[in-house]
C-alpha cells in the first residue's frame, strides 16, 4: 500500500506515526515544502520519500492525507483527484469555513474529512443509544489552554480561531448525532483574548427540526490542563445525557442521576496507541471502510454553520 501525506506538521506527523505503527509495510511519500524541515526529515526517515511539491507525482496513491493549512486543501484535493488517488482524507475543517459549496469535484465517493472525536467511545455510545427524533436541545462545549501567546502565520488569521480549529469538532459531533447540519443562528458572540481572531465563542442556533443548539468554545482557558469537550443532550421527555471523553451520565426529568456509563465499560482496544484511542480508531477506519468517518457533505455542513456564526457575529457588531 502506498500513502501520500501533504504536510508534515503536527497532524501529518501524528497520522504518519499511527499508520506506520499499524502497518510497517506501508510505503510513505510526504510533501513538505519547507526546505529545512524537509532536509531534516530526509536525514531521519530513510524509508520515506520526501518531495518539495507534487509536480513529479503522476502515479495514483492508495490513500492520500491532506494535512496542510486549510486554505490550500482544495488545490491539493483537485490534484489528488486528477491523479486518481483512491481514497482521500482531508483534515478538518475541510477547505476552511469559506468552502461551503459542493463542487462537482467533491462527488468522489472516497473523500473523507478528519473529525476525530467521532471515534470517542462515549460518542459512539450516544450515536447508537440516543434517539435523534426525541432530542430537544444540545449544548456543546470545548475548553482548552491551547494558546498561551499570540500565534504566528495563518494560525492568527481567519482560517484559524477557536471556532475553526476546535469548535468545528463539536459542531461535527452535533450534526453527527442529530443527522442534520441545517441550522440557523439565533445569537453569537466572539472574543479575542490572545490571538487576533476568536479565542472564546458563544452561539445559539436552531435546527430545521426545531432543536436548540448552544455552543461554548474557549481555547485560552488557563485552568484547563488538557483539552476537554462535552455535550449535554436534553430529550423531549426531560431525560438528560451528559457526555465527555470519559463518561455518559444520564439524568431523569427531575435531575436525578440514574445511570453512568464509564469509558472503562465501553472502551475498545487498539493495536497501536499514540495520543488517544480516537486517533488510532480513525486511522484504522481509513485503512478499512471509513464507516464512521465524516464525508464531504458532513465537512461542508460544518463549514456552513461556522460561516453563518461568523457572519452573524460580524453583522451584529456593525
Amino acid at each position, binding site marked *: 500500500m502506498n500513502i501520500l501525506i501533504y504536510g508534515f*506538521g503536527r497532524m501529518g506527523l501524528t497520522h504518519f506515526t*499511527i499508520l*506506520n505503527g499499524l502497518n510497517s509495510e506501508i510505503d510513505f511519500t510526504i510533501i513538505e515544502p519547507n526546505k529545512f524541515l524537509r532536509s531534516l526529515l530526509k*536525514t531521519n526517515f530513510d524509508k520515506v520519500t520526501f518531495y518539495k511539491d507534487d509536480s513529479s507525482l503522476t502515479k495514483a496513491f492508495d490513500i492520500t492525507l491532506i494535512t496542510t493549512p486549510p486554505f490550500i486543501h482544495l488545490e491539493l484535493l483537485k490534484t489528488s483527484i486528477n491523479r486518481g488517488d483512491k481514497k482521500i482524507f482531508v483534515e478538518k475543517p475541510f477547505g476552511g469555513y469559506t468552502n461551503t459549496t459542493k463542487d462537482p469535484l467533491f462527488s468522489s465517493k472516497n473523500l473523507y474529512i478528519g473529525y476525530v472525536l467521532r471515534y470517542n467511545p462515549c460518542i459512539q455510545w450516544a450515536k447508537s443509544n440516543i434517539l435523534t427524533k426525541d432530542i430537544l436541545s444540545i449544548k456543546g462545549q470545548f475548553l482548552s489552554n491551547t494558546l498561551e501567546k499570540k500565534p504566528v502565520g495563518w494560525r492568527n488569521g481567519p482560517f484559524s480561531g477557536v471556532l475553526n480549529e476546535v469548535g468545528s469538532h463539536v459542531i461535527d459531533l452535533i450534526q453527527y448525532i442529530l443527522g442534520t447540519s441545517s441550522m440557523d443562528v439565533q445569537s453569537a458572540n466572539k472574543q479575542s483574548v490572545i490571538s487576533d481572531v476568536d479565542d472564546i465563542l458563544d452561539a445559539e442556533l436552531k435546527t430545521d427540526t426545531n432543536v436548540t443548539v448552544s455552543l461554548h468554545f474557549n481555547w485560552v482557558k488557563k485552568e484547563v490542563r488538557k483539552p476537554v469537550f462535552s455535550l449535554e443532550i436534553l430529550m423531549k421527555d426531560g431525560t438528560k445525557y451528559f457526555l465527555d471523553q*470519559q463518561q455518559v451520565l444520564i439524568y431523569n426529568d427531575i435531575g436525578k442521576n440514574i445511570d453512568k456509563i464509564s469509558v472503562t465499560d465501553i472502551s475498545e482496544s487498539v493495536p497501536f*496507541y499514540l495520543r488517544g484511542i480516537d486517533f488510532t480508531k480513525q486511522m484504522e477506519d481509513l485503512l478499512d471502510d471509513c464507516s464512521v468517518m465524516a464525508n464531504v457533505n458532513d465537512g461542508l455542513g460544518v463549514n456552513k454553520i461556522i460561516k453563518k456564526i461568523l457572519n452573524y457575529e460580524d453583522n451584529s457588531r456593525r
Partner: protein
Amino acid sequence: MKIILGDNQFFGVNHFDLNKGEKTKLKFDSLNKIEDFINDSLSFGLDGFMINSNNIGYKLISQTDFKSNKEIHYSIPYPHKYANMINESGMLSLLKYVIKNTSFWKNILVGSKLLLTRNVKYLVPLSLDIEVPSNLKKGSYIYMQNIITDLLIGMGRGDLIVDFINSVSKMGYKPGLITLNPIKLDYILNHNKVSKISDLIVCFNINKQGFNVFPSLSVVESFINSRPNYKLMAMSIFASGAADIPSSIDYIKKLNLDYVVFGTSKLRNVKSNFELLNV
C-alpha cells in the same frame, strides 16, 4: 515489588473525572504542599516517588533537598508545553527552543552536530540537558514520557529510544521508558544493543479491567509472565479511578512485576493502598 507514589494528582490529572482533577490541582497549589505530601507518603514506607519535568516538577527537584534515600523517578518531557509550542509557532519552533535553551557548551558540543548533520539523534542529549535539573540525585531514574516513546516506536525510530537509555546511563542516572505499547517496545529492546538493560524500567498500563491496556490484557499479561531482562512497572492499576481498589490491588499483586506506581490526592488512600499492596 517496589511501590512508587505517582504525580498525576499534583497536576490535576484525573483521566476518569476531569472536574475532580481540577479540584485536586487546587489542593497542591504550592511546592511546599507537594513536598509535604511526598514526604508524608514516603514515611508510610513507599519506596519512592515519580515527578514530571513540567514547571512544578522541575522546580520541586531543583529547589528541594530530599534527604531520604528513597528513589526519585523523574519523567521528561512535559508534552503539553511542546504541543502548545507547535500549535502556536509550527514544528521548527521546537528545534529553535531546544537550541535556545541548551547550555552554551552543550550547544557547542552537540547542538552544532545537530545543525550540521540534521540527525535528530543529537536532540536526545540536548533534551536531557534542558529537562533534567542539575541537582537531580545521581542514581535516580529518568523516564521518557509515553507520548515521545510511542511516537518514536510508531515512527520506526527505536534507535532513538536506545540512544536515550544509553545517554541517561552515561549521565549517572538509571533509564526508564513509559509506553502504552509495551509489546512493540519489547521488540525494539530485543533487537538493539542496550547497555545496562537490567537497570531499565519499562512502565506501562495494566489493570484488571484491561482499560487502556494495549494491544490487549491477555497479551500484556503474557508479556509480564515472559519476564524480560529489564524491570517492569505497572501504572494505571485502578483503571484511572474507575475500578474497585481492593480487587485491583489483588489482581496486580498476582502479576510478576518489579514496581507499581499509583497516584492519589489523599494521604489516607496512599496509606491504605500501600498496606493492601503489602499484605
